[in-house]
């Protein structure tokens, strides 16, 4: 068994070094996602971004899915070894592996979506999705009849925790007595867990839901759809279509727009690794209300949300919200 494994690794190394010799100067873009691109959220947005890069810039693109840290590092390394100019590691969890791989491949630009710091040729894209989750929380706080709101998280990664905290803060602003509840599933795949968690939260009296659990949240949407007076706010993509009568709005990251911005810069040359931080001000982060349900949101509440958005944008001086390298 061990011998077989060793042989395989040697073969892979040999193959890897072969492809390294075949480097072309052609601009190619690779994307590594931590989950299925059929999640109607985080990963499908990245895939849409990759397709836009292909269509708008006319460059070759490629995508792989890698779940475990070992696979993720290997996937980044494989793209770099094949001479890809720009490689996206789609998620906070790619920061460490991108930094390690980047030492060997200085010619490749690694972009870590939702990353935390610049390191050589590694650039983080920071999405301040929590600014939009804050606005969603305001709507939820203003609309909740039971006074209890719920958040369903996948794994407690820092950006997800930030979104949860902002959602609660937004709700408290409209209703200081709001009771926030949350459940973490420890998975982004388990749809049934997403539903069971929502059913338990409904039992606890929650009537406003928000999530950041990608595919697992599909079960949360199902549970909300089945209960008469509950509403949900989507995350990452405009998810109104998942339950048109129950999604009040979505905290949206316009991933295609962000990806295209970076790829265009990289293709033009002279890309300097830097923190690219997107908030409401950039238009990449938005709170998109569901037009079909907009009439159910009282006008004063809508006005308060708009005012809050404007003040967040006004306060955004362009300074980055990135945390310093540790």
């Amino acid at each position, binding site marked *: 068994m061990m011998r077989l494994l060793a042989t395989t690794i040697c073969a892979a190394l040999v193959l890897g070094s072969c492809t390294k010799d075949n480097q072309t100067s052609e601009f190619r873009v690779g994307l590594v996602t931590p989950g*299925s*691109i059929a999640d*109607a959220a985080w990963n499908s947005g990245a895939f849409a971004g990759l397709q836009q890069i292909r269509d708008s810039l006319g460059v070759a693109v490629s995508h792989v899915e890698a779940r475990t840290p070992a696979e993720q590092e290997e996937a980044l390394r494989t793209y770099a070894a094949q001479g890809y100019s720009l490689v996206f590691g789609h998620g906070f969890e790619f920061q460490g592996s991108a930094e390690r791989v980047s030492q060997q491949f200085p010619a490749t630009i690694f972009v870590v979506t939702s990353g935390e710091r610049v390191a050589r040729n590694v650039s983080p894209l920071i999405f301040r999705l929590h600014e939009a989750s804050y606005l969603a929380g305001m709507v939820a706080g203003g609309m909740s009849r039971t006074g209890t709101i719920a958040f369903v998280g996948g794994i407690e990664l820092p950006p997800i925790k930030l979104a949860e905290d902002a959602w609660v803060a937004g709700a408290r602003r409209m209703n200081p007595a709001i009771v926030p509840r949350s459940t973490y599933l420890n998975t982004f795949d*388990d*749809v049934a867990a997403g539903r*069971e*968690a929502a059913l338990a939260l409904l*039992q*606890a009296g929650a009537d406003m839901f928000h999530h950041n659990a990608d*595919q697992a949240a599909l079960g949360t949407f199902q549970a909300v759809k089945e209960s008469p007076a509950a509403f949900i706010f989507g995350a990452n993509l405009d998810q109104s279509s998942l339950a048109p009568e129950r999604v009040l709005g979505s905290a949206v990251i316009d991933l295609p727009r962000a990806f295209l911005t970076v790829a265009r810069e990289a293709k033009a040359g002279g890309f300097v690794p830097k923190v690219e931080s997107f908030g409401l001000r950039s238009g990449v982060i938005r709170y998109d209300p569901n037009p079909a349900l907009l009439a159910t949101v009282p006008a004063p509440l809508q006005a308060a949300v708009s005012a809050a958005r404007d003040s967040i944008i006004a306060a955004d001086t362009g300074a980055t919200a990135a945390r310093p390298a540790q």
Partner: protein
Amino acid sequence: MDLLETFLTAAVRVATPLLLAALGETIAERAGVINLGIEGAMLAGALGAALGATAGGPLLGVAAATAAGLCISLLFAVVAVRFRANQIITGTAVTLAAVGLTGAIYRDAYGAEGVGLSLPTLGILPVPGLSRIPVLGEALFAQSALTYAAYLLVACCWWLLYRTSWGLGLRAAGEAAEHARASGVAVARVRMIAVLIGGALAGLAGASLVLAQVGTFAEKMTAGRGFIAIAIVVLGGWHPVRVALAALFFGAAMALQFLFQSFLLGVPYQLFLMLPYLLTLLVLAGAWGRTRAPGDLGRS
């Protein structure tokens, strides 16, 4: 519905796919075959259920799920039983293949970006009278038809294993294949059929996940339930009735973690997430030495 009833109902609902898969695995393991491919068969069943329900409603979904589970386990049976390849490696390969295959078929059928399918589901079917029993009635008898099917299958499996001569031959094949062969049991054939029964039940488990629980399909949505079912078989000592109790116990632990997270504020949720596994360890430690695996389990 009070909290206790909510909890018990959730426990039975969550336990149903685990129970179906574990029953199937019990049959296969009693025949001497450990099939790690049931995770894959369950996933194939889930996709089959989605495709079937889209095409012709929930009943067709159930049929398609069973057929899909059967197909996947046929692959395992041919390689591991007919050609006597290593069961652990074959099962793992079958599961990995099913993960890739279901993902590809799903994206092909419903589009790469995933639409968040909303499928017609099997509704709750309360049993008149029985569902009125205080406390337990709602939990046990206000479930979907697949839960009742699982109850019946527990009895069927028990009868098959302990009250038929075919079941005797099957247990002999699992305990001591050589002796069974010497006394005229067609070991390979019995094992093949046992694996197929297991696959069909795993497919049914996938159907219950999709059609009785979530009403949607997502890639890798079984999320390790097939492997949990294998642990349940061990926990239940390879006996259908005890396996059913073990599945309920697991379902309860899984349901409890979400109720605890929703109701007990301020306690680190990680404690609740490890609850099912912690409880299993405790129960296994307690049950150690009292049960024994079939003698020829895993020997090809």
